[in-house]
């Protein structure tokens, strides 16, 4: 454990970028927790008197068409955006882990059936699938989460399957069987924990993608319902104001969205460095 900690510290110390990503992640997490409490204004209260004001001391990120403070909306949106990403990723991670572990471990027909289903899912243009699901189920936050989880599912299932496949015949798995572990126990206690670190890389890379995906859905009108503050929808709505000169509407949420995705991507890289011994030289 201590060596892991030492190694973590080392990786972070060695790599400023990863350190910055960790710091950013902490900042985002804090924002998600405290956002509504520390936002300078209410994210929902409108004030037509100050609509579409450019950034100023009072409103650092300016105000939107209803006079709402963009900074506050961006801050408050953190919880929702991270929430969508975390839940969607967690959902696909759990389901994908289960399917992938089963497919990889049992092989044979289990594998064939699961893999075929996943192939079918993969054959869909994934974003269109997400659009279709949200359109069919209705655009609520839950459905956005389901749809995002659904399109991430193949990734997890496939990666976990192949990781499990590699380890299925490893000595320690055979040893576990020799020592009286049944299939499910082997999967849960012996295989899965060993696959987990590799998966964490994908999880963090995927978080970024989940956020982007929600933003894309917002852009075509399948995002969260107004007046909820959400980065994607703020960018999507703000985008139409760029040409008329109200650049701050899209730029600030866009920048924060990018930072978040950026942060998760870099974290993924950092985790990979942490986990992949080959990268450790």
């Amino acid at each position, binding site marked *: 454990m201590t060596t892991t900690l030492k*190694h973590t510290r*080392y990786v972070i110390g*060695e790599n400023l970028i990863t350190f910055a990503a960790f710091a950013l992640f902490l900042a985002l997490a804090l924002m998600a927790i405290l956002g509504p409490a520390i936002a300078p204004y209410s994210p929902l209260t409108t004030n037509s008197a100050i609509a579409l004001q450019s950034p100023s001391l009072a409103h650092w990120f300016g105000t939107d068409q209803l006079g709402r403070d963009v900074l506050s909306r961006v801050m408050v949106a953190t919880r929702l955006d991270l929430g969508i990403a975390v839940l969607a990723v967690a959902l696909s991670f759990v389901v994908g882990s289960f399917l992938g572990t089963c497919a990889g471990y049992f092989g044979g027909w289990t594998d064939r059936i699961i893999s075929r289903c996943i192939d079918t899912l993969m054959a869909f243009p994934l974003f269109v699938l997400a659009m279709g699901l949200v359109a069919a189920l209705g655009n609520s936050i839950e459905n956005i989460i389901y749809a995002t989880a659904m399109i991430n599912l193949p990734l997890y299932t496939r990666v976990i399957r192949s990781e499990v496949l590699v380890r299925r015949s490893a000595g320690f798995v055979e040893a576990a069987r020799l020592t009286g572990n049944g299939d499910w126990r082997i999967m849960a206690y012996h295989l899965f924990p060993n696959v987990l670190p590799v998966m964490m890389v994908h999880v963090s890379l995927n978080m970024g993608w989940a956020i982007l995906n929600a933003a894309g859905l917002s852009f075509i009108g399948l995002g969260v319902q107004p007046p909820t503050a959400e980065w994607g929808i703020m960018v999507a709505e703000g985008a139409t104001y760029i040409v008329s000169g109200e650049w701050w509407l899209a730029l600030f949420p866009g920048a924060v969205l990018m930072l978040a995705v950026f942060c998760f991507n870099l974290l993924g890289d950092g985790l990979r460095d942490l986990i992949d011994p080959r990268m*450790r*030289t």
Partner: protein
Amino acid sequence: MLSVEDLSVEFRTRAGVVKALEAVNFSVQPGETVGIVGESGSGKSVTAFTLMGVLDRAGQVTAGRALFQSNRVAVDLLKESESSLRQLRGQELSMIFQNPRTALNPIRQVGKQITDVLRCHSDLPPADLRLKALEMLASVRIPDPVKRYEAYPYELSGGLCQRIMIALALACSPELLIADEPTTGLDVTTQTTVMNLLKDLAAQRQMATVLITHDLALASEYCDRIVVMHAGHVVESAPTHSLFSQPRHPYTAKLIAATPEPHKSFAELMPIGGNLPDLKAMDLAPCRFSTRCDRFDSALCGQTPLKRAALAPDHQVACWQPL
């Protein structure tokens, strides 16, 4: 023809600096087969990689010379520029590796890999490259060389791959061949075949060979002289016969005693106690065997630097109280 003097190599890793080699000395005469023997982590392969200039990025030569002299050139391998070293590699000195299957480019026909080497070291017209490569394949006793020329490594057995490696290494008739555990992972019968082949080819071409192995018995069968390494030190270096009949370093003696052998009974098989010292440690003892040695005398063995002495003209040992 090769004289390694005071070679020291360090690896900078995240966990600290590893003193992989320290003041390694040995030499190879023309036509001679020298065995470098030691357990894993003793620095055998690092020595070979250093000489070939293919050390990992993290490795750094901190001291020493490696004078190489052949009919054509006389250089210090550690001082040469990368480009002139490249000329030497494959041409003057070459190397074969353990695990021949991964040591060959998996997606290139083995024959082509040989011609690649020929092309960059010889003036042969392109048309003759293939012929020469086929000739090499035949010389390592590969049946049906024309067919094998087009084979990929995955289509060949480990023994065949190792023979291809030998052909590749010998393609430009180097004067020195470094064989790094050439038979690890091969079956015993294949091992004998490969070793016999190497032996024959070396004799035919009057080529000096450095055989790196962890198998003392194997080294004893094929080498003229043996260098025993332990934890980055050369502990003993002697002609094969005298090394086995009269090992002077305690480690050598223990190694011999620990090696199973056809005529050795179970009771005679003596384990070596202790572990290799941590080469990252800052306070590494001058004698790196001291922790495992039952003759350890703190007054004597704690001295710096480690005593290295020639007990006979060609028998060196690094010990304060040799056997």
